[in-house]
């Protein structure tokens, strides 16, 4: 296996365990529920085949669902961001051609681009998950607050992850 494949599988597993064994057990408030695991989909290399994108999202969502006792919830939201990922990348390319094999991280593409990309993906994922979880429109205000606060929390965690792993030299 090429080092890139190994690296992605390791990241996938690390994020999954971080989510279900650590993050899910830290109960900050009902408004703040970070989902760091979606970084595994966000950071897949640009040349990942599209079917593989969907398939990894399906498996990742399923595994997270098993551990949170929520059938299909994380699965559906993660599939959604895997589906929109190519379109989001197109939208914010600004004419830039993503080089092959290059993964979308801060080191390769700069802080501005990375912030834009990650925020869009996080907000789409969190909107899907919280609306599906509530499954009614009567608690609209609370749900919006929940999306905003949780997105911010996830965003902070994503940046911590970047500083810990992706920005290291070597």
């Amino acid at each position, binding site marked *: 296996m090429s080092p890139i494949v190994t690296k992605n599988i390791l990241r996938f597993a690390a994020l999954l365990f971080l989510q*279900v*064994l650590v993050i*899910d*057990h830290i*109960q*900050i*408030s*009902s*408004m*703040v*529920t970070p989902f760091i695991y979606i970084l595994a989909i966000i950071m897949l290399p640009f040349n990942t085949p*599209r*079917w593989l994108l*969907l*398939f990894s*999202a*399906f498996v990742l*969502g399923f595994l997270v*669902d*098993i*551990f*949170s*006792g*929520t*059938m*299909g*919830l994380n*699965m*559906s939201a993660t*599939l*959604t961001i*895997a*589906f929109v990922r*190519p379109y989001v990348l197109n939208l914010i390319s600004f004419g830039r051609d993503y080089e092959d094999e290059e993964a979308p991280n801060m080191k390769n593409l700069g802080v501005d681009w990375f912030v834009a990309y990650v925020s869009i993906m996080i907000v789409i994922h969190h909107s899907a998950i*919280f609306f*599906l*979880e*509530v499954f009614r429109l009567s*608690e609209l205000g*609370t749900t919006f607050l929940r999306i905003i606060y949780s997105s911010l929390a996830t965003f902070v965690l994503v940046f911590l992850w970047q500083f810990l792993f992706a920005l290291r030299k070597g």
Partner: protein
Amino acid sequence: MSNLFRFLKRFHFILLFLFLQGIALILLVNYNRYQSGQFMRFYNEVSGAVFNARHSLAQYFNLRRSNVELAAENARLRSQIEQSYQRFDRSVFVVNDTVFRLQYEYIQAQIIKNTTSRRNNYLMINKGSNQGVREGMAVISPTGVVGIVRAVSNNFSSIMSLLHSDSRISARIKENNFSTGSVSWNGRLAGISQMLEIPPHIEVHVGDTVITSGFSLNFPEGILIGTVSRVQTRPTDNFHTLDIKLSTDFHTLDHVYVVRNLARNELDQLLQYHLPE
């Protein structure tokens, strides 16, 4: 035929997405129907084993607090045992065993997974059908009501917490005779539940105690739920909405008891007569 392949090749991304998303949504929508099925039993057993391992490690950090809580409960129970009561002359006070019949049994369990920050919160405990836990049983803690057992596997069970949108606990207010309310959770704050539609003639004050009513088949009467922390009165018809500060601290919960109602079968049979055909 070649057109079909070309079509599939061209639209494989969106078709695959719709297919997988369909599976996810079917699972999501039918979640309640799967809960007692074979699939859920497997699902409980797998995640239960992982969380059990995690809990056996994390437990050490809570030992001090758990000890204090259990010691407090021991002290309370000790004050209720026979030796603690003054004994009067036996010829006057005959202990008549036919007056009391054991109706509730308690199964001790430990929580291995607990969420409080979702809209629909679940807990998982390390006792299952092998230890006598069944679907629908009530779960209480040393400090109050916790929830109701929703799914059971051999050695683990998942419990619908009070902090769940489907959770309704039949309750009454200790200080007055109002006894037909139900406690539910609006999803805002993890320690505060609500009691809705209290009629205007009922007098409620902040600080009143809310306990289980005993009208449900799973909870014994008089288990503490919480205390009234805010009373809001609707201007149009004077109905009250109560905020209830739950006595159970869901953030630090560790030891719980599953309540087995020994009269459950009898009550179920009786109730069948009232069900419509």
